Structures are given as structure tokens and as C-alpha cells.
């Protein structure tokens, strides 16, 4: 295994493009090192991108949105009061990954590129409408997060592509987001079901919404029917029931060591309803 520490994303992309074997980008390393230690993946070229300027930056844009460097850790996001105030659901989704120690290293982009349908930070990013910059051979392009995962452990990135920044939209007025996941213990598990809800209110009514489920299908899924079920409502019981039903219907889960199909369908509905209530309360200015 060769270790590289490029100074620019272009250089990083070139190293990856020129590699004859398996490449991995290293930021937080909380997946890469586990795979290395357990002999699942030993890259031929390991490209540490933390030497590139700006990868540790959290920057508020002029439009009120945020740009995050790709090596910003979960702990750094949690410690950023303003970011957390704007996007509590997104930040909490990141914070739920692993232990305090893992939080010291783990990153949004790493979680995304690992390609797991159970990735805790990805539903929140998709619900928020985040995009990522991808630097490749033909320059840098901007892609919505939901287009990155294509299957368990697989992403739309091709050889020589490296994600170089995360962009979070402006929060704007009367918006709120939330992420909940179900795990058997209180900490340290992989999500059995995850659900992020991001919405905006007009009066008491929901005017915009995005509902995203994790760990219930081969990829994280943006559930448009679920959003429709609550748009135009004040999240009354009927809307919540419809939300739950659409969430269950959107599941295409598997039975595995972490949960059953039936359990995932049931709990998807439960979490969708609970997360929607929190997001709704936050949009109204609640502190939940």
C-alpha cells in the first residue's frame, strides 16, 4: 500500500486516475481503517486528502448556506453552534455515528462514500438538499447527494473522482429538520432504520418537505410520497398516519442480523412520524 498526501484535489484526482489498483481516499479513516485491519480492502494507493487547504473549514456562504470541507469531523460539526442551530437534524445524524472517539475523525463525505444504506448522516444531507463538489479529470462538478449512492457499498463516483466539498442550502425562514434512527442499544450500533425529515411551514401548514429513509432499501431513499402526505397539512393525526403508511410502503428491506423486513417496515413508519413531529416543532421555533 502506498500512502499519498497531495496538496490539491486536482493532484488527488490525478493520483487516483493513474493508479493501477484499488484506491481509497483517507479523511477520517473510520471506515477505511476498519476495512484495512480486517483485510476486507487493502488499497494499493491510499490518498490522504487532509493536507489540502480548506478541508477542515466550515464556512457560511453569503446566501446563508454552508460549505463544509471534506475532513470536517462530526465533533467539529457538533461544536459549531450556528451550523447546529440551522441544521440540527443533519448535524445530529452525523453525531450519531459511532462513539465520541469516532466522532473525532468521522466525516460526512466518508459516510457518504462508504455507500452504506444505513449511513446515519446521509438521510439528513439528502433531506436538507445538500450537494457535493466532485473533482475529476474533467474539472469540478456539483451533484445532489441523493445521486451518489447507487447500491450497497457502491457510489456513482468513477475512477479519478474525488469529493472536494459539501454544500448545505440556506436554512431560510420557518424551516426545521430532524433525524432519528433505530438501534438496539443506545449507542455504537449501525442503524436498523433511519429517517430524516426536513420541512418548511407556511402558517401552521407544511409548505415544503423532504422525507428520507435509511437502512430499508439498497440505498438511502428519498420518499416523495411521504413528503406529499404531509405537505399542505398541519401534521394532524391523519397526515401522520399517511406519512407512516407511505414510509412503510417505500421500504424494500432485507432480513439480516440487525433486523427483519417486518420490523424495518413497522419502525420506518414510527420514526417517520416521530421525526416529522420534531422537525415541525423546530420549524415553529421549538427547541426540541
Amino acid at each position, binding site marked *: 500500500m502506498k500512502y499519498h498526501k497531495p496538496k490539491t484535489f486536482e493532484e488527488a484526482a490525478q493520483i487516483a486516475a493513474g493508479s493501477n489498483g484499488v484506491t481509497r481516499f483517507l479523511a477520517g479513516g473510520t471506515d477505511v481503517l476498519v476495512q484495512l485491519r480486517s483485510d476486507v480492502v487493502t488499497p494499493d494507493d491510499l490518498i490522504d486528502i487532509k493536507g489540502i487547504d480548506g478541508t477542515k473549514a466550515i464556512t457560511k456562504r453569503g446566501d446563508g448556506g454552508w460549505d463544509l470541507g471534506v475532513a470536517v469531523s462530526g465533533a467539529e460539526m457538533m461544536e459549531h453552534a450556528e451550523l447546529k442551530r440551522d441544521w440540527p437534524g443533519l448535524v445530529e445524524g452525523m453525531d450519531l455515528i*459511532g462513539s465520541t472517539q469516532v466522532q473525532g475523525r468521522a466525516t460526512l463525505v466518508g459516510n457518504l462514500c462508504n455507500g452504506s444504506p444505513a449511513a446515519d448522516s446521509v438521510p439528513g444531507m439528502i433531506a436538507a438538499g445538500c450537494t457535493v463538489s466532485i473533482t475529476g479529470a474533467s474539472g469540478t462538478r456539483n451533484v445532489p447527494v441523493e445521486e451518489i449512492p447507487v447500491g450497497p457499498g457502491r457510489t456513482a463516483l468513477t475512477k479519478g473522482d474525488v469529493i472536494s466539498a459539501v454544500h448545505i442550502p440556506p436554512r431560510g425562514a420557518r424551516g426545521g429538520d430532524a433525524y432519528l434512527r433505530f438501534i438496539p442499544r443506545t449507542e*455504537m450500533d449501525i442503524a436498523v432504520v433511519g429517517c430524516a425529515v426536513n420541512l418548511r411551514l407556511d402558517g401552521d401548514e407544511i409548505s415544503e418537505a423532504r422525507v428520507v429513509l435509511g437502512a430499508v432499501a439498497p440505498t438511502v431513499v428519498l420518499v416523495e410520497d411521504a413528503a406529499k402526505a404531509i405537505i399542505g397539512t398541519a401534521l394532524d393525526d391523519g397526515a401522520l398516519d399517511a406519512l407512516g403508511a407511505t414510509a412503510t410502503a417505500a421500504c424494500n428491506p432485507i432480513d439480516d442480523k440487525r433486523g427483519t423486513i417486518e420490523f424495518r417496515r413497522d419502525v420506518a413508519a414510527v420514526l417517520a412520524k416521530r421525526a416529522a413531529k420534531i422537525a415541525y416543532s423546530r420549524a415553529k421555533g421549538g427547541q426540541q
Partner: protein
Amino acid sequence: MSKHHVSATVNGDPVEYLCDPRETLLDCLRDHLGVMGVKEGCGTGDCGACSVTVDGRLVCSCLVLGVEAEGAEIGTVEGMGTEGNLHVLQEKFIEHAALQCGICTPGILVAAEALLKKNPDPSETELRYWLAGNLCRCTGYDKIIRAVMDAAADMREAS
């Protein structure tokens, strides 16, 4: 396979080592620098026995490559206190019988110290969640939690 030369500090002392890029910081601390208070319980970031601080940030040293530590300041249990001048946490762990086999103790001490630096007055729940990545199989955590809470109270009083 070429090795990398790394310069860093461990508990304030300058160190240098040569490492294979596949070696973790945990491997380097133990095998190249003889810092044996750092333990490997899982190698996958699930047990916290290898907890250290890197530039003040609590991490699992099994999830950091040795080569990544270039220029870093690393803190381990060996740097917390010395015989005759123990850290309050170390004293309280002994006093409260907060260890049985003791293999998880160095990691828990390092993690608890990192918490108390950030939050000198944690609630029991905050403490339990902070330490959720530090497995202890002997104690059921009860006496560990009591020891840390007691140490935090003493440290608040002293400051």
C-alpha cells in the same frame, strides 16, 4: 515496501519512528515507541481501549494511521499523571474500585479527561453517552460513572 518517517510528540516528548503505511497509530505507539498503556481490544473502533488524544481531540488510535500522526501531539494515559502526582481521575478510579481487570481503564481515563476538559460538570447521562465507546466488561460501569462524577466534583471545587 518503503517506510515513512514520522516526527510527533507523545505526552509532550518529541518522538520519531519509521512505519509501514498500513500500521495504525496504535501499532506505532505500542510496537515502535513502547507506549503500552494503549490497548487493542478490537481494532475496529468499537471498544475504546486504544483511546488517545491527537492534537487534543479524543480518537481511537486503531482508527488513525501511524503516518497520519506527522507533527501531531499525542496524549495517552501515561501522560495523565505520575506516581505521587496522579490525576484526580486516576485517584478516584482506585478509590471507587472503578476497575477490575483494568484493561479498559487507560482508555476510559483518557476519554473521561477529554470530557471534563470540555464539560467540567457533565450529567450522569452525558457522561454515559460520552463513554459509550469505551467498553468495560467487568464492572457494569456503575463504579466508573461514580468515580468520574466524583473526580469532576473535586476538580470543580479545586478550580
